[in-house]
C-alpha cells in the first residue's frame, strides 16, 4: 500500500514537472534544446529519487544511509557535492536564444549558440571576453601590446582590460581597496543569507520534533542532534561565503584570470563541472547492466556461463583501456566529419562525443565490478537461505532477483561511489592525451591540456591549471570522503564491530 502511494506521488511529480516544462517551452521566447546527455542525466536523477523513495520505506536500506548522515565528514562531503550537483544540473538545461527579427520573416530565427541556464545566469562573465591572458584580479593584460596613442606615436605597454577592473580609474591605487570592500560586503551578505537559512532550518526541525525553537537551537548548536546539523551548517556557511565572494568579485574582475583567447577561466571551470559529473555518473549507468548481469550470472550459474563470462572479461581487461577508447573516439570523429548534416549545432556534436566517451569508458570499466559480483554471487549461492529457496522449488531468476540482487546491492553502491572520482580523473587524463571530450567543450582535462603550453611560457601562465586543480580537487576529495562514509556504513563487518562483537 505504501509503495503504491510512493509510486503514485512520484508519477504525480513527474507529470507536474513535464506539464511545467511544456508550459515553459511554449511560453518562454526561447527554443529548448534537449541533448542526449541531458536526457540521461535527468533519467539518472529520477532513478536516484525513485531509489530514495523506495529506500525510505525499507528499514534495511534506510539504516546504512542514516549511518552516512551521522558521519560528520560524510555530511560535509555531501554539502560540497550537492553544490557541484546544482551547478551541473543548471548547466544541463539547454536552450537557444531568439535572434532579433532582422529579415521580417514569419518564422522566428534562433541563435546558433546553445546556452544553458548556467550560461544565462553568468552572462556578464561569459561575455566579458578580453583579448588574451590576464592574471587573476588584474586590470591589465598579461602581454604587452603596441598601442596607438592619440598623438600618433606607438607605445608597447600592458593595455587596460575591457571588463576586468574596468570600473576603476586608477587601478594601482584603488584596486586593493575595492577588492577589500567588495569582499567585506560579500561576507556580510553571505552571513545574512546563511543566518536566514539557519533560522529556516531550525524552525523546520523544531516543528518536526515538536520542540520549542529556542531549545532546538541549543541542541543543534551543541551538536546534540542525531544528524550533525551544526557541521552541515558550518559547511554551508563556508560554501555560501565562497559563493558570495565569487559572485560579487567575478562581476568586477576575472577572479581566476583569462585564458589565451581572453575567456574568463572561472566561467570555464564552472562549465567543466558538468563534464566531470556526466563522465563520472553516466559511465556507471552504462557499465551497471553489464557488470550486474554478467557478474551474477557467472557466479550463480557457474559452469559454462561462468567460463564464457570470465573469458570475455579477462580478454577485455587485458587490452589497454586507452587503446580501445582512442580507437572508438577516432572512429566517431571520422563518422561525425563525414555526416555533418546530422548535427544542428556544435553543442550537439560535442555532446554526442561526450556520450560516446561515457559509453566506451563504461564498456572498458565494467570488468572490475563484474569480478566482485561474481565472487559475491558465488558465496551467496551457497548460503543456507538460497538452499532453502531451492528446496522450495523457487526458480533461478526469482532467486537472483529476490535473494542475490538485494544482497549485492551494497557492493554495487560502494563501487559506484568509489569509481566516480577515478572517472573524473580519467577524463582529465584522456583529454590530455587527446582522446577525451571535444576540444570545444569545457572540461578540466582540456584546461590541463592547454596548460601544457602555458606552463612553458615566460612569464608563466599558472592560473588555468590552478583553477582546474582546485575545482577538481574539491570534487574528487569530497567524492572520496563520501565514498568512505558510504563504505563504512554498508560494511557489515564495521557495523558489527560495535558492541555486539565485543560481547
Amino acid at each position, binding site marked *: 500500500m505504501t509503495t503504491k502511494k510512493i509510486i503514485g506521488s512520484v508519477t504525480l511529480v513527474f507529470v507536474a514537472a513535464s506539464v511545467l516544462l511544456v508550459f515553459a517551452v511554449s511560453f518562454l521566447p526561447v527554443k529548448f534544446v534537449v541533448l542526449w546527455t541531458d536526457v540521461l542525466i535527468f533519467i539518472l536523477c529520477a532513478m536516484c529519487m525513485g531509489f530514495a523513495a523506495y529506500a525510505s520505506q525499507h528499514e534495511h536500506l534506510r539504516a546504512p544511509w542514516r549511518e552516512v548522515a551521522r558521519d560528520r565528514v560524510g555530511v560535509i562531503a555531501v554539502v560540497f557535492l550537492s553544490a557541484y550537483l546544482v551547478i551541473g544540473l543548471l548547466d544541463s538545461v539547454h536552450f537557444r536564444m531568439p535572434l532579433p527579427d532582422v529579415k521580417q520573416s514569419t518564422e522566428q530565427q534562433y541563435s546558433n549558440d546553445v546556452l544553458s541556464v548556467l550560461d544565462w545566469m553568468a552572462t556578464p562573465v561569459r561575455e566579458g571576453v578580453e583579448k588574451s591572458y590576464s592574471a587573476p584580479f588584474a586590470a591589465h593584460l598579461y602581454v604587452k601590446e603596441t598601442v596607438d596613442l592619440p598623438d600618433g606615436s606607438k607605445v608597447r605597454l600592458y593595455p587596460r582590460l575591457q571588463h576586468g577592473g574596468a570600473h576603476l580609474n586608477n587601478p594601482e591605487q584603488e584596486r586593493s581597496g575595492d577588492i577589500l570592500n567588495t569582499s567585506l560586503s560579500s561576507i556580510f551578505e553571505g552571513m545574512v543569507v546563511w543566518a536566514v537559512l539557519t533560522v529556516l532550518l531550525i524552525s523546520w526541525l523544531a516543528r518536526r520534533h515538536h520542540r520549542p525553537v529556542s531549545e532546538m537551537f541549543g541542541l543543534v548548536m551543541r551538536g546534540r542532534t542525531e544528524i550533525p546539523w551544526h557541521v552541515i551548517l558550518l559547511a554551508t556557511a563556508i560554501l555560501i561565503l565562497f559563493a558570495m565572494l565569487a559572485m560579487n568579485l567575478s562581476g568586477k574582475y576575472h577572479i581566476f584570470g583569462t585564458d589565451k583567447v581572453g575567456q574568463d577561466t572561472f566561467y570555464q571551470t564552472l562549465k567543466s563541472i558538468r563534464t566531470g559529473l556526466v563522465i563520472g555518473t553516466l559511465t556507471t549507468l552504462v557499465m551497471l547492466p553489464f557488470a550486474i548481469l554478467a557478474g551474477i550470472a557467472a557466479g550463480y550459474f557457474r559452469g559454462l556461463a561462468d567460463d564464457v563470462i570470465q573469458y570475455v572479461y579477462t580478454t577485455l581487461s587485458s587490452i589497454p583501456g586507452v587503446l580501445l577508447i582512442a580507437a572508438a573516439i577516432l572512429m566517431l570523429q571520422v563518422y561525425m566529419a563525414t555526416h555533418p548534416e546530422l548535427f544542428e549545432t556544435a553543442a550537439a556534436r560535442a555532446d554526442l562525443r561526450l556520450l560516446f566517451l561515457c559509453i566506451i569508458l563504461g564498456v572498458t570499466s565494467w570488468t572490475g565490478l563484474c569480478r566482485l559480483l561474481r565472487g559475491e554471487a558465488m558465496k551467496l549461492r551457497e548460503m*543456507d537461505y538460497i538452499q*532453502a529457496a531451492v*528446496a522450495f522449488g523457487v526458480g533461478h531468476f526469482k532467486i537472483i532477483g529476490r535473494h542475490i540482487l538485494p544482497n549485492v546491492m551494497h557492493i554495487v553502491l560502494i563501487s559506484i561511489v568509489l569509481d566516480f572520482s577515478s572517472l573524473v580523473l580519467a577524463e582529465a587524463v584522456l583529454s590530455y592525451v587527446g582522446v577525451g571530450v571535444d576540444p570545444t567543450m569545457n572540461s578540466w582535462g582540456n584546461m590541463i591540456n592547454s596548460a601544457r603550453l602555458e606552463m612553458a611560457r615566460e612569464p608563466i601562465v599558472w592560473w588555468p591549471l590552478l583553477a582546474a586543480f582546485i575545482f577538481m580537487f574539491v570534487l574528487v576529495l569530497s567524492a572520496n570522503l563520501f565514498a568512505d562514509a558510504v563504505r563504512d556504513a554498508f560494511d557489515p563487518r564495521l557495523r558489527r564491530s560495535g558492541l555486539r562483537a565485543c*560481547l
Partner: protein
Amino acid sequence: MTDILLQVENLKTWFGSGAGAVRAVDGVSFEIKRGETFALLGESGCGKSVTSLSIMRLLSQPAGQVVGGRALLEGQDLLRLPEVKMRDVRGGRVAMIFQEPMTSLNPVLTVGEQICESLRRHRGLKGEKAQAALLELLDAVGIPDPRQRALEYPHQLSGGMKQRIMISIALAGEPELLIADEPTTALDVTIQAQILELLRTLQKERGMSIMLITHDLGVVAELADRVAVMYAGQIVEQASVREFFNAPQHPYSRKLFDSLPDINKRKSKLAIIAGSVPNLGQEFKGCRFADRCELAWQTCRDVEPVWQISDEGRGIRCHLYDAQLLSGRPVSQVAPVVVEEEVVPEKANQQISLLEINNLKVHYPIHKGLFKRRVGQVHAVDGVSFNIETGRTLALVGESGCGKTTAGKAILQLIRPTAGTVYFQGTSLNDLRGESLRKRRADFQIIFQDPYSSMNPRMRVADIIEEGMTALGVEVSRQSRQARVDELLTQVGLSPSMKYRYPHEFSGGQRQRICIARALAVNPKLIVCDEPTSALDVSVQAQILNLLKRLQDELGLSYLFITHNLSVVAYLAHEVAVMYLGRIVERGTVEEVLQNPRHPYTQALLAAVPVPDPDSRREISPLKGDMPSPIHPPAGCHFHPRCPHAMPICHDIYPGETVLSDKHRVHCHLYQDSAC
C-alpha cells in the same frame, strides 16, 4: 595466602559510556589457587570471555573499558600495570588459548616459527636451545614426528593438531596460569576428548593453574576442580565441582541441568528457561534472573541479592539462601514448584516406510592442471542406505567431514547424487527433473544449522515464510497465505505480530523457530534437520527440541536429524545411523545403538562425550588420530587406522553388513563370524 595465584576482585567491564553502557562484566570476584582448574561456566553473552580478556587487558579499545576492580596476580594488580610490563605477563606468566584454532595461527609462518617466537620473547632462547625446547614442547602436547611437523604450515594440520600447537605456544612461556577460552568447542567429540586429556596431563606435570571458560557442563565435570556459574555479567554460584554437580543451588544452575537432553528424559518435555537474558545496558534493581525464575517472588525483583559464602566455602547469589529474606516469601510459593512432567506417549510404530535410500553416493571430482583433468574424487557420501518411517526420527550421527550434511542435501536433491536411489513414498526422486521435482518439493524440507545465515537479511519474516507457499502454490490467495503465516508463527511459539520484522531483530532461538515455521509452511512430510541446535545455548536448545518433538506428535512428521551431539540423539531419535567417512558403520534403534554399541567407532564416540558428572571421570584412553581424508579413504575398513581392535583382515576388506537384530546392523569384522 601464597597458594592463591590470581585474585579477581569486583571486576567491572563496561562497553560504551553513559546510562546506556553495556555492563558486560559487573562486579565479578573469584580466586584461582596454584595448580587448580577453575571453570567459568555460562551461556553465550554472559560475560565470561570478557572477564578473561579484561584480566589479560586484551579488550578492544576504546569500546571496552575496565571501570573498576582489581586483578591481583600474586599481589600485583594486572589492571594497573604499564603496558610494557603487561607484555611480559601475557604469554609469560598468563597464557591464553582460544576457541578457534583455525584462525589463531598465522597461515604464512610455519608452526615451528610461531612457537619459537614465544620461546624467544619469554625465555630468551635462540638457535639450538630454542630448537631443543621446541621439540620438547611439541612432544609434550603429543604431536607425532615433531621435527617434521615444526616445519609445516597451519593448513597442513588438522583442527585437533592446530589446537595442540596453540597449547604448545601457550606453554612456551612456561605460564603459571593458562586461560583456556572454550578450547574444545570447535572440535569434534573424539578430538575434544584428546585435548581435554592433554590439558589434564599437562596440568599434572607442570602444576600450572587453568582457568577454563566453557558453556559445556560435561567439559566442566571432566576437567575442573572448582566452578563458577556466570549469568548476565555476575557470578551467581561458586562451588567445588563435586558439590556443584551433586546439588546445584542457584535456580539458574538447576535449570541448566534440567535442560540437558538425555535418554532418561525421552518421555517428558525438557525443562526450559523462559524468556531470554536481560539487556545488560541498564541498571538492575533486583535479581537479574528474577524474570526467568520460577521460584522468584517480589523481593527478588526489588532487592539485589548479595554474594553469600556458606561455611563449606560455597558462594551463591540468591535470596533463597538468605534466611532473613526467605522468611518474607509468600507462603503460597514456599512449596516447591513441581516442574510439569508432561508425559508424551510414544506413538505406536506404524511401519509405513516414507523414505528409502539405497546405496546413495555423492562423489565430487577433483580437477587439476590446465585442461582440468580429473585426478580423483572426494568420496563425500559413499554408499549409504537407510529408511525412515512415517512419524519417526532417524538420527544421522558423525563427526564433521563424515558426509552427513551432504547425504541430507543429496536426499533433498539439493545436490544431485552420483549413484544410488532415493525413493520417497515410492517415487524415485533421482529421476525427477525440473517441474515434476519442483512439485514434489513441498513434501520434504530442510532446517539448517546456522540460524543467522539461513534467512535472507533483506526480507521480512512474513515474506520469508510466504516464499515457499508462493513458489509451490500451497495457498493461492494472499489473505489465506497471510492467515497461514500467522498460524505458523503461533504454532512455533512466536507472536503473529512479529511477522513484519526483519530477521536481525530476533535471537538465535527465535530465528530457528522462524526457520521451522518456514519449512512447515508447505506441509512437508519429512524434514531434514541439519544440526538445528548446535549453534544454540543449552537452554534454547531445549526449547527447540521440545518444539520439534511436539510438532512431530501433532503433525506426524518424520525427521532426518543430522547431528554430532549424542545426547540430543538420545532424547529425540527413534533410530540412529552412525556415519564414518561417507559410510554408515552401525545403525539400529536408539536403545540398541546407544546402550549396546557394537562398532568400535560408535563405542569410542560414546565414550568421548563428556558426562556432566565428575564422579564418572573416565579412564578410557581417547581415540587416537584424526579422521582420514575422504579423497583417499584407507583401504579395507575405513576405521582400521584408529581402531583399537584392528585385525589383519581389516586392512584389506571393507566389512559387510552384519545383522544383529531386527533393526541393528553393523559393519565390522568383529561380528562377521557370529552372523555366519
